[in-house]
């Protein structure tokens, strides 16, 4: 079979679906023309209606590139979402979906150390690819995660967050929670930050503005802070 151009559209098959939270699911896709991604990279998804109307969105890969032949896209169901709604309401195992990727080589982890990951809500998805890949390839390397979520019900990948993870519950902590509560602040950053190396910040624009400002205050240089933002602000 002739190889496709890198980044060309191809038809992937849904081989697994996992409910992560009330509004987030992970979709495992099997790709005929799979290439290993860098943790942090994204794929584009394209939906085509019978009348030819098309919609595209980008989704970060949550899995490690060591999962040969497959990628996992973790999708948050947005209130007015067009493509995320399709994932959640229509897609079942065995369905086919058009994808292309992996794309973009800026917000990626190539083994940088130490690495501080800072995620807000579903901004954890590309960071989870980094965390998973590090566990498989270099579990001793310095990597920590600051993860801000509203409540215990909103924690994605809960069973994979180990002692490298610093969680804060911005709205309501679970019963008996002894850790950080409230929005990300200088105290939380100072406990997790290395003060050197690279920081990867992903979340809503407001979260990224706040978190990257705190990192600048904590001594990170602008070139040491990589950001990925999503969501409308106005």
């Amino acid at each position, binding site marked *: 079979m002739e190889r496709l*151009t*890198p*980044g*060309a*559209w191809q*038809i992937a098959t849904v081989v697994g679906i996992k409910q992560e939270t009330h509004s987030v699911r992970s979709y495992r896709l099997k790709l005929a023309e799979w290439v290993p991604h860098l943790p942090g990279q994204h794929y*584009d998804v*394209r*939906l*085509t*209606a*019978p*009348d030819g*109307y*098309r*919609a*595209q*969105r*980008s989704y970060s890969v949550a899995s490690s590139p060591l999962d040969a032949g497959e990628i996992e896209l973790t999708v948050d169901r947005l209130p*007015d*979402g*067009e493509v995320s*709604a*399709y994932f959640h309401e*229509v897609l079942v195992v065995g*369905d*086919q*979906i*058009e994808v292309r990727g992996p*794309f*973009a*080589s*800026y*917000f990626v982890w190539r083994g940088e150390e130490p690495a501080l990951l800072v995620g807000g809500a579903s901004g954890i998805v590309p960071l989870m690819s980094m965390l998973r890949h590090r566990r498989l390839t270099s579990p001793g390397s310095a990597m920590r995660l600051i993860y801000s979520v509203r409540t215990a019900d909103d924690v994605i990948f809960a069973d994979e967050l180990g002692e490298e993870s610093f969680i804060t519950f911005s709205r309501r902590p679970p019963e008996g929670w002894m850790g950080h509560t409230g929005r990300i602040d200088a105290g939380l950053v100072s406990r997790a930050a290395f003060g050197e190396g690279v920081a990867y910040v992903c979340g809503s*624009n407001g979260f990224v*503005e706040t978190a*990257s*400002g705190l*990192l*600048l205050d904590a001594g990170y240089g*602008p*070139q040491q*802070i*990589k*950001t990925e*933002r*999503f*969501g*409308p*602000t*106005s």
Partner: protein
Amino acid sequence: MADFVSRGFGGGRRAPEHLAKRMPPGQYYEKGFPVLTAGPTPRVDLASWTFKVEGKVVSPGEWSWEQVAGLGLEQIPCDIHCVTKWSKLDTSFGGVSLDRFWDRVEPRGGFAVARSTGGYTTNLPMEDLTGGKAWLVWEHEGTPLTPDHGGPVRLLVPHLYLWKSAKWISQIRVLADDYPGFWEANGYHNRGDPWREQRYWND
């Protein structure tokens, strides 16, 4: 591949019918103004800010904020298209055409790299920056451009994907040869024409 239809997809976020022709392929209709930036938002002080035009030009120039604002304020109604798939139609910016600067410096190269405070770069052929197609802007829909949208002053090249419209612009360097900028070196298309859907390297 053109025949593939997504089972059960009807399209939930189409642009209003009379605007559909103004939506480039693969874009969705967005009423807000999302923010996408690589890295933290730099704090730019207008008192010390300058805009430089250098490189292959007859006479390099440097303008202070007062000098740039003194060139006049043109209203630029436009549609803008972000490579992350949203398009915002019927928006407007206020600023000054780059042609005003070209008249002064007389470019002699076919390419340019725009540079931002904070180090971001993007490359464009001079054809895309001349002839009333590119502006320095400092207002959006009648109010000062906010820092997260590239204020105080950004480049605006609305006929290309918005990453070409460098935020926090500080310099344009005219070059004899093309030289990839930040996103162009990180997997994104060299030209970025939304109507040809030039998103990534092989598009």
